[in-house]
């Protein structure tokens, strides 16, 4: 018995030692730093950084191939190289380099962005820095709990005006207005719709707390070939819901198997339809909800009809049945992202989605059409007996082979720049059969009731934690977010579009190289820029009601509307009444809030009286007086 216990203790002891000595220490950090040094040395721009001179010697190749060689080394060689580099710049230097913690989502592109930041910082400031991401993909809970206790990340991510206001109110976000003015990362450089997500207007004085990582919004994707087969003109500009319906009715008929129908359109949101039609959740200063309007009712009716009368859009039950594995995390609801899978299978003719869906679509095109076509063509060239087998230009087979390798087999491979000649070569070999298998995407504006495009667009921003001991470096990170290197990377990796306007306007399209793969050229469409620049609107926020509660109250009504448990008119009225009731309750419970409300409206708040009537009566009096 005693020996068993002793043996167990020894085992646990050994395990603990192993855990602390081998598993826990972070060894990849130093490697990442060496990669940054190697990249800088490859570009040859800056040479006075300590350690950069010795790097070619340590890795054993000339500048230009340092990074590539380092990446292809095996584990032991790489560790040895890191060790030699570390001792060449002085013992302990590499370990003592400050590390920023960036709480962000788990997009695989973040790794590349971190590398870019290390390189940019070396080149711009001449000193090394490290950065790691701390994905908290689920929600903001983790960040909030950590921040309130004083252990938060250095860089915090937030989305939309409401979250910014909460984090600013909590005092977590550092005011970076002065630094932004001095180092040129101010509000004047970004899309106007992103401004409320990064700055707060305090009676005319704009204080900046963050800088956009990218802009989030969705547009309408459609199958170009389905439009062509049906003999419909492709929608190129703004269009109305009625026009869209005409197309959707035709498209939902499936000529291949009559009697079975296709989905006409997916993911069109009732809230956005109503807001685009002119409805609004709140009045201008957020003192009351004015949602119950003819525009909202009209939009709701059109929305319901699309599901139940026209049957061009799936009902919630149908959508839930179709939504399988395609994707989306719990915040979005599986329906939203599986739409892209259904779209790719041509179950739906049109759907509302974002530019980030490039990768999913591109991987389908790669596997279904492009790689098989290239393989076939290479075999033809090798055979060389029949007419047309000869190379169309010298070295075609090699170019195609290189193209197959460039496309790789992983999602992240699709985000690497691909030489133009490879894309041209691919495009040239596609037969009609290949084109049939290709997803040929068109992009256009989301239809609205009025015909004028309208988009809800907010920015995903990064802000500096005010308690961070590395706040100075944090500001540099925001400066980096405004740099060409970062913004071009966002555009090139189809991570929606970048926040800085100037990098989106380019004669090469939004992304420049790499070009999208054949069939997906529309992902560089001007529509994306127009949507964000001309027609985008930030979220409407009321200071008198929390967004989460607003979501609960309005979301329930939306569920009922979608299941036809309430009529459009009832729904619009219920949304307004529920929001106003909540605002009234909030005002009753909080003296400070009530004082603010009264100073804006100009009358005393009367509990139990319809809020909209109170506000409108007050306005009428002010209007009458003036």
């Amino acid at each position, binding site marked *: 018995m005693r020996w068993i216990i002793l043996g167990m203790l020894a085992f646990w002891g050994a395990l603990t030692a192993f*855990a602390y000595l081998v598993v*826990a220490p972070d060894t990849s950090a130093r490697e990442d730093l060496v990669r940054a040094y190697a990249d800088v040395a490859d570009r040859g721009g800056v040479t006075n950084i300590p350690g950069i001179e010795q790097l070619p010697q340590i890795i054993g190749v000339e500048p230009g191939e340092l990074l590539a060689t380092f990446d292809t080394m095996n584990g032991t060689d790489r560790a040895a190289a890191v060790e030699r580099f570390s001792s060449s710049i002085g013992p302990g230097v590499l370990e003592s380099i400050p590390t920023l913690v960036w709480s962000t989502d788990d997009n695989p592109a973040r790794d590349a962005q971190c590398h870019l930041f290390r390189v940019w910082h070396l080149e711009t400031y001449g000193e090394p820095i490290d950065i790691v991401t701390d994905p908290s993909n689920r929600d903001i809970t983790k960040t909030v709990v950590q921040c309130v206790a004083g252990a938060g990340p250095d860089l915090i991510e937030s989305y939309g005006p409401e979250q910014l206001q909460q984090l600013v109110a909590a005092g977590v976000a550092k005011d970076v207005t002065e630094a932004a003015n001095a180092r040129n990362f101010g509000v004047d450089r970004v899309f106007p719709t992103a401004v409320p997500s990064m700055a707060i207007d305090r009676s005319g004085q704009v204080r900046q707390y963050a800088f956009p990582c990218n802009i989030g919004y969705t547009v309408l994707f459609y199958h170009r070939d389905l439009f062509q087969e049906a003999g419909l003109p492709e929608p190129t500009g703004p269009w109305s819901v009625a026009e869209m319906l005409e197309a959707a009715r035709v498209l939902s008929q499936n000529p291949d198997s009559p009697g079975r129908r296709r989905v006409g359109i997916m993911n069109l949101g009732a809230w956005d339809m109503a807001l685009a039609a002119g409805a609004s959740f709140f009045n201008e200063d957020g003192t009351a909800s004015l949602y119950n309007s003819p525009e909202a009712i009209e939009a709701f009716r059109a929305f319901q009809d699309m599901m139940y009368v026209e049957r061009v859009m799936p009902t919630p039950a149908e959508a839930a049945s179709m939504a399988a594995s395609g*994707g*989306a995390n719990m915040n979005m609801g599986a329906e939203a992202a599986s739409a892209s899978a259904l779209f790719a299978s041509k179950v739906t003719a049109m759907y509302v989605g974002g530019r980030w869906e490039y990768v999913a679509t591109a991987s389908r095109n790669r596997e279904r059409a492009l790689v098989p076509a290239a393989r076939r063509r290479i075999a033809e060239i090798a055979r060389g007996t029949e007419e047309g087998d000869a190379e169309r230009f010298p070295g075609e087979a090699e170019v195609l082979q290189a193209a197959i390798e460039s496309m790789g087999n992983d999602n992240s491979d699709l985000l690497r720049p691909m030489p133009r000649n490879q894309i041209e070569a691919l495009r040239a070999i596609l037969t009609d059969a290949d084109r049939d298998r290709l997803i040929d995407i068109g992009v256009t504006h989301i239809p609205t009731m009025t015909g004028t495009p309208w988009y809800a667009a907010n920015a995903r921003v990064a802000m500096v934690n005010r308690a961070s001991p590395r706040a100075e470096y944090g500001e540099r990170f925001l400066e980096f977010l405004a740099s060409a290197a970062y913004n071009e990377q966002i555009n090139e990796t189809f991570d929606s579009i970048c926040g800085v306007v100037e990098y989106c306007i380019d004669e090469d399209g939004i992304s420049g190289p790499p070009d999208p793969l054949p069939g997906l050229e529309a992902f560089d469409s001007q529509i994306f820029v127009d949507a964000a620049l001309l027609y985008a609107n930030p979220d409407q926020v009321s200071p008198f009601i929390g967004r989460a509660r607003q979501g609960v109250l309005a979301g329930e009504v939306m569920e009922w509307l979608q299941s036809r448990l309430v009529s459009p008119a009832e729904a619009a009225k219920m949304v307004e009444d529920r929001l106003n009731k909540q605002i009234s309750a909030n005002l009753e419970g909080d003296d400070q809030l009530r004082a603010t409300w009264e100073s804006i409206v100009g009358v005393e708040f009367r509990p139990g009286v319809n809020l909209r009537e109170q506000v409108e009566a007050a306005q009428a009096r002010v209007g009458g007086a003036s």
Partner: protein
Amino acid sequence: MSKQQLAASEQLDVVGRKPFPLVRALVFVGLVLLGITFVLPFVWQVLISVSSLTDVDLLTQLGYPPDLKPENYGEVFEKVEFARYFFNSIFIAGWATLLQVITCAMAAYAFARLSWPGRDKVFFLYLGTLMVPGVVLMVPNFVIVLRLGMFNDYLGLIIPAAFSAYGTFLLRQFMLTVPSSLDEAAAIDGASHWRIFTQIMLPMARPGLIVLAIFAFLFNYNSFFWPLILIKDDNLRTLPIGLMAFDSTYGRDTPLIMAGSLMAMIPPIIVFLVLQKYLVKGIQLGAVKG
């Protein structure tokens, strides 16, 4: 207990005698039918885990994946540091289980077998804390762990899990069922409390200890929210958090999640299989009665 007796007791069931063949057959059929309802979702999970992402939709219509992709299992290891997460989860859950069983058994002994002033009051205090929902305790708990310097460290996951009011309650209930004549006799023989505890109480309450060990291991192995908040480094992440990398804002890779979670089930199954052998021994021990 002699060998014959043991063999005889094996023939008996809880209702004290060998049941009629018909009853036995019915029970067996019932177990198999119930077994199907329990196994079917897992068979389904296995099928999903070897499908390609695009085929998951078709599974109910086809009943079987068109292209088998067993390489999903390898991909889990390639795409995230799965082996590391595996180690961390087992390491943390193992330590927490060991410590929790020890501290709870000692405390349970004090509550079940020792008589001291204020015993019942303290016990009710323990019981009372079980009633407080955990969500709001997250913030104060985090502050405490941070102040103790256990943030982003194995300790922060092990130490708070080493004490449990639940485990104390559970073991107290088990120790209450141990006949008090046993330890009274030992006490009269002059045995110390420590001796009674280790030589009589622990063996007698072994089924309870094992049940608690299983619970504690599973709870800590599957725990999600606390490690999510407490751990910053990728190297220290546990399995449930590591697996969530496949459920990101950029798509849910259901086959990989299912493949990963099936592999994650292996250590608990081993723990369960190993410990339940002792559970059976506990069954026999319970029958020995001193």
